Every structure is written in structure tokens, then in C-alpha cells.
């Protein structure tokens, strides 16, 4: 026997902030997979087949920042530090920071249940998110 699912329309259920962040967590996960795929294809095009091992390519996929391939046998790092890769890395850092900080808030909510505590967690999370986004962008663009 097939059970009939009870469907509440989104307008009645409320498309509130938590709901939006639930969706954002899933969509940003897909976006980060897409970025990793772009980084993988880019690494293959730029010569990873001859000068990098599997773990090096994975590290480049985690964040396509040129310092992640410094320790490889690549003869020329210039294409790895191009504007395109800096923009990709910037997108990844911004998405990953938002995804990660929200994830920490979700975990904290499992243990901190009083409204005031949750408010404090959210305040700290916003400050942390902005600070680490800025630091990440500085590392990508100026170091």
C-alpha cells in the first residue's frame, strides 16, 4: 500500500530564513562540487597529467589557489595564478565560509537551546563569517 504524503504548500509552511539556509546548504554543496570539477578539468588542461600526483590534484580541487601546487613538479606556475583561478577560488571561499559557518550554527543549535544562547551564537557566527571571508580573500588576492 502506498502512503499518501501530506503536502503543506510552501506559502503556508513559511519560506523563512532557516528554510532558505536549508536550501542554500544543498545548493552551495552542488556549487562547490561544480567548482571542484572545473578545477579538476583545468588542472588536466594545464599539465597536471605530467607533473602532479593524485593527491596534488585533489588538493588543487579543494581550493584552486596557486600556493596549493607550489610543492609539485610543475615547471611554470603562472597559468595556475591567473585571474580566472583567483575568481574561482574567491567564489569557493565565499560559498564555503557561508556553508561552513551555517553548519556550525546548526550543530550549536543541537546543544544550545535557550533563545538568548542561540542569539549569541548567531551574532558570533556573523562576525566569524565576515572575518574569515575577508582573510580568505586577502590570502587569495594579495599573497
Amino acid at each position, binding site marked *: 500500500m502506498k502512503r499518501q504524503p501530506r503536502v503543506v504548500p510552501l506559502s503556508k509552511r513559511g519560506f523563512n530564513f532557516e528554510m532558505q539556509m536549508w536550501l542554500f546548504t*544543498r545548493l552551495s*554543496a*552542488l556549487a*562547490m*562540487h561544480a567548482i*571542484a570539477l572545473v578545477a579538476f578539468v583545468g588542472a588536466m588542461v594545464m599539465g597536471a597529467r605530467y607533473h602532479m*600526483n*593524485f*593527491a596534488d590534484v*585533489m588538493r588543487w580541487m*579543494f581550493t584552486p589557489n596557486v*600556493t596549493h601546487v607550489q*610543492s609539485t613538479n610543475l615547471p611554470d606556475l603562472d597559468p595556475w595564478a591567473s585571474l580566472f583561478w583567483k575568481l574561482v577560488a574567491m567564489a569557493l571561499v565565499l560559498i*564555503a565560509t557561508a556553508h*561552513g*559557518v551555517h*553548519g*556550525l550554527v546548526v*550543530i550549536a543549535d543541537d546543544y544550545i*537551546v*535557550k*533563545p538568548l544562547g542561540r542569539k549569541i551564537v548567531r551574532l558570533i557566527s556573523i562576525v566569524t563569517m565576515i572575518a*574569515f571571508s575577508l*582573510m*580568505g580573500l*586577502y*590570502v587569495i588576492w594579495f*599573497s
Partner: protein
Amino acid sequence: MGMTRNVSLFKALGYKGKGPFLTFILHRIGGIGMAVFIAVHVLASFMGGPAGRFLNDIYESWPFQIFIYFCVMFHAINGLRITILDLWPKLLEYQREAIWVEFAVFIPLYAFSVYVIVSNALTGG
């Protein structure tokens, strides 16, 4: 508003939830591991200097790389499963099978990464 849970941490860790619980707790460990250690890594790269170099040397050491690769790859592959099942809820009926597929993807990928990292560490290449 607030909910109370009368479950101690040790009781929670002993919970036998099988596959779904295992992936849940590993997803959490991986998520916290990434949030903490990638934050430290970004902070160290931002600071530079001897202190930053010291922190990044720890981060780049091969035992630590094995740990952070576990966090990232498990979180990524498990996250992809969660995303696919949540965005196409009809597939939730097959979540136990999906977990098997997930481990079939994760174990070879991670094992090969560990093999490459360790063999590089041993040969110094």
C-alpha cells in the same frame, strides 16, 4: 521554545543507528574538522611570519593531510548524497542503498589518496 534532551554525550555515542547514523556522525566530525582546521589554515596564511609558518607546517605534514583529506572527501561525498536525496525526495526510499554506493565511491578514492600521500612521505618525493 527550548527543548530539553535527557541524553548524555556517551549515551549518544553508543547509539546503534547503523549506516545512516554512521554517516551522520562522520559528516559532523568532518564538518567540524574542516571548519576548525581550514579556519586555522586560512588564519595562518593570512598572518604569515614564523607563527603562520609553524601552523601551516603542521597543516601540511602528511599525518595531518590524511586527517583533513578524510574530512573533506567524506563530507563532500556524503554531502552529495544528502543533496541528491533531499532535492529529489522520491529517492529517500533508497537511502540505505545510497549509503552503500557512497561508501563504494568514498573508500577507493580515500584509500588511493592515503596511499599516494604516504608513499610520497616515505620516498620524500
